[in-house]
């Protein structure tokens, strides 16, 4: 059943700890305790060494949780265990919260070659941050940015959430202006999704109304485009050349290693997800969920993922890979979408416009 494909050159590492748990978060995470983290790093190292066969890794992403919630010693240990894999990395990202990204951690990042940092800003209004149980203020973000730049880490992404309770349209536009004033290279804006087992869900906080979310994305897009950013993926904007290379691996349907509690990966023809049970994971009993990706699944994944970015699907490559002439088989739908301004077809590349990105699920269902 297993088909050999080129080894992945992308590596994701999950650090599940957080100093406090945000009201909306549904990622695999738990409260940071020194002893837990210590055990975790042992198991993580073992998985890393066992699973990652390829030392020639091009992109690394350490996410969470909050990787920077580890204490300095543990943080160093983490970066050190990754070191053998990071020699050829062209993009090495670590996720951070403004309040835990201390100057000493920034120096560690620099030392180990981390060249990109992603910061969870979420809102630039302090009263909103407080209301969703975030522990930082906007001025924390500013000082972190300054410290990073002082240490020559300039490739920075800032995350923002659209549709938090009590955030008006006007406040959201202020958020964008505030964020632009910090001159990041990359901005991600995610429309709030309310998941089960979160404080938001329990408190019956509703996801933003469709029209609000649409108008918000539209307004954000126009503000960011005016400042030179390109909307290259549904929720991501970047200055030219600063698109996230690691995340593009996902959206280009390429293989990647996923290491750590609840992490997902894609190796050969298998998409897997590690156990989300902490005790199991640290006892080396990682129960893995596996999905065998058939050629037909892969074809669907390709469409679903590649249509998320402005780079779209190259129809000739697609036909070579899957033997399907997508345009011929869906001519009427595709032509309609093009005429209505949702898709473009140029040089055999089928790509979504801004409007198209907003209704991708529907487009995918019409094309799959």
């Amino acid at each position, binding site marked *: 059943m297993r088909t050999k494909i080129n080894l992945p050159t992308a590596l*994701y590492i999950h650090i599940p700890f957080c100093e406090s748990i945000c009201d909306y978060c549904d990622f695999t995470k738990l409260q940071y305790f020194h002893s837990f983290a210590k055990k975790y790093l042992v198991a993580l190292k073992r998985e890393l060494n066992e699973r990652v066969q390829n030392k020639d890794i091009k992109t690394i992403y350490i996410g969470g949780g909050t990787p920077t919630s580890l204490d300095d010693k543990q943080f160093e240990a983490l970066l050190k265990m990754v070191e053998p894999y990071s020699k050829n990395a062209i993009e090495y990202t670590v996720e951070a919260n403004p309040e835990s990204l201390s100057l000493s951690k920034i120096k560690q990042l620099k030392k180990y070659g981390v060249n990109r940092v992603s910061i969870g800003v979420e809102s630039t209004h302090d009263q909103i941050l407080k209301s969703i149980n975030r522990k930082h203020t906007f001025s924390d973000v500013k000082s972190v940015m300054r410290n990073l730049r002082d240490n020559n880490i300039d490739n920075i992404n800032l995350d923002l959430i*659209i549709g938090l309770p009590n955030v008006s349209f006007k406040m959201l536009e202020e958020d964008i202006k505030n964020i632009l004033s910090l001159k990041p290279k990359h901005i991600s804006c*995610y*429309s709030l*999704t309310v998941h089960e087992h979160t404080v938001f869900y329990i408190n019956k906080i509703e996801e933003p109304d*469709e*029209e609000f*979310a*649409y108008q918000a*994305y539209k307004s954000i897009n126009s503000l960011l485009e005016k400042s030179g950013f390109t909307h290259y993926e*549904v*929720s991501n904007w970047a200055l030219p050349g600063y698109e996230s290379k690691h*995340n593009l691996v*996902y*959206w280009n349907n390429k293989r990647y290693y*996923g290491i750590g509690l*609840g*992490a*997902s*990966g*894609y190796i050969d023809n298998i*998409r897997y*997800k590690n156990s989300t049970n902490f005790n199991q994971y640290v006892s080396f009993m990682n129960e893995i969920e596996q*999905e065998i990706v058939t050629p037909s*699944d892969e074809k*669907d*994944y390709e469409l*679903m*993922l590649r249509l*998320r970015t402005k780079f779209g699907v190259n129809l000739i490559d697609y036909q070579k890979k899957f033997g399907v002439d997508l345009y011929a088989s869906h001519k009427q739908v595709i032509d*309609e979408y093009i005429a*209505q301004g*949702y898709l473009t077809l140029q040089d055999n590349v089928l790509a979504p416009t801004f409007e198209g*990105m*907003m*209704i*991708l*699920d*529907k487009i*995918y*269902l019409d094309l*799959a």
Partner: protein
Amino acid sequence: MNFDQKYTRNFSIIAHIDHGKSTLADRILELTGAVSTREMKDQILDSMDLERERGITIKLNAVTLSYTSDDGNTYIFNLIDTPGHVDFTYEVSRSLAACEGAVLVVDATQGVEAQTLANVYLAIDNDLAILPVINKIDLPSAMPEWAKEEIEKRIGISSEQAVEVSAKTGFHIHELLEAIVKEIPAPNGDESAPLQALIFDSYYDSYRGVVILIRIKEGSVKVGDHIKLMQSDKDYIVTELGIRSPDEIKLKELKCGQVGYLCAQIKDIRDVRPGDTVTSFDRPASKALPGYRDINPMVFCGLYPVDSDDYQDLKDALEKLSLNDASLQFVPETSQALGFGFRCGFLGLLHMDVIQERLEREYNIDLILTAPSVIYHVYLTNGEMVPIDNPSKLPDSSKINRIEEPYVKANIMTPKEYVGPIMELCQEKRGIYLDLQYFDDTRMILVYELPLSEIVYNFFDKLKSCTKGYASFDYEPSIYRPSDLIKMDVLLNGQVVDALSSIVYRPQAYNRGLGIIRRIKTVIPRQQFEIPIQAAIGGKIIARVDVKAVRKDVLAKCYGGDISRKKKLLEKQKEGKKRMKKVGSVEVPQEAFMSILSIDEEEN
């Protein structure tokens, strides 16, 4: 098995749905050693998967059993199963005509129900001996004495010899078998008389042609005999005879009193009409046995393949199904919205459901069904009458003098506290009050004449909800009456969708129209543009709702683990999309076509 009429008992089991008929049949089969317990699937007589799943009997079945009685003799029992649903009443009358007796099963906790009553009267009309059985006496809530009283009071037969059993535990089944021997008379045909055999069912077998299930009333038949079907006037040579136990046992001869099967290389099942008489070609009986009433489909709907490439497959499947189901009718029809399909006639809604499920399950065809309709008699100004079973085919109103619609006579049995709500419901459904009788001190029988279209529409559900499920209901066709009816069209995105047209009662048209389009709105997937849904009468829009345009439909975050999860979700939606038909630029799911039925005026 040596055959002697004296030691034969032919009987059916009559019961209300859920009163345990099939379970009882299974126990009888076990105790008579017809099939060993190990081989038994639950409820062996309900052999279609669908029957077993729904706990109902659809096609009747017959099985021959042998039973050694306490009197030392071995008896042949022919148990002929009967369906318990109102759609299949005609099948009950077929079974009964092949028997000398009927075992009447009454639930010790429920008493006598309307459906049971209807079937007992059929049995009494057929001069059958009736043996009452009180079932489910293992239940703590069982009230056998009360159930017996019910039988005496309501049906008017003696319950003295009633056997108290539990089909579930097998309790007293032996006593029941003894009672069958004693109470049900042996057949008394004349073996030397000319052959008269009643056809009570048939099915198609690709190797042997039509297999006919018969009950020999007079005379006998042998392999090689030249036979004639009296009503259809066709003649054949008998190639095979036998009984089913329930596996087939071939015999050289079937004699009067026996129930068995007959094959004669008959190619077309339409030549074999249940109720017809088989006789000898050379020495024919002077007259045929009394047949059954003709079975006419009452409910019609359009059946279309979702994928137009499946048209031929659908045609083949319908042909195959109709081989074993003479009551299923179909003719090709074309819809502008749905393409090529068939207009099919069914005995009722359950029959329609069953056929739909079989087509989808056994033949793997995704279907779109239009809302069921009845046959309207449309009288034109030139005096001509056209029967219309498809609302979109209704002639232009300027050419119509009047429209008549079929009515049914409905017997509704209910605890008396629900009489008020039921009468209100019947009134709302344009019912004509006929009678109200006390059935006993707690229950009443309401008799109404109701338009069949209202029954098809949502009468069952309404009846259930206004009586908390306590009322039972039974109907038979009555007559055609003139009604103030008009065609209502539905427009999607400005385009009339013929398959969504319906014929409605004019004074209720606005409410009905609004109800329908509101319901359609909930099932039409949103498009990137706004879709108006309109109800129109004679080209005039009477109601409108809009399906809002989709603005944002995308997963914001799609990394690592989101990817597989998202694909699974999309996969599910893709499955749902398979059952949609593109009408113009709008995708219409199956539910939309049924929304004509399921709307609820109260929602307005």
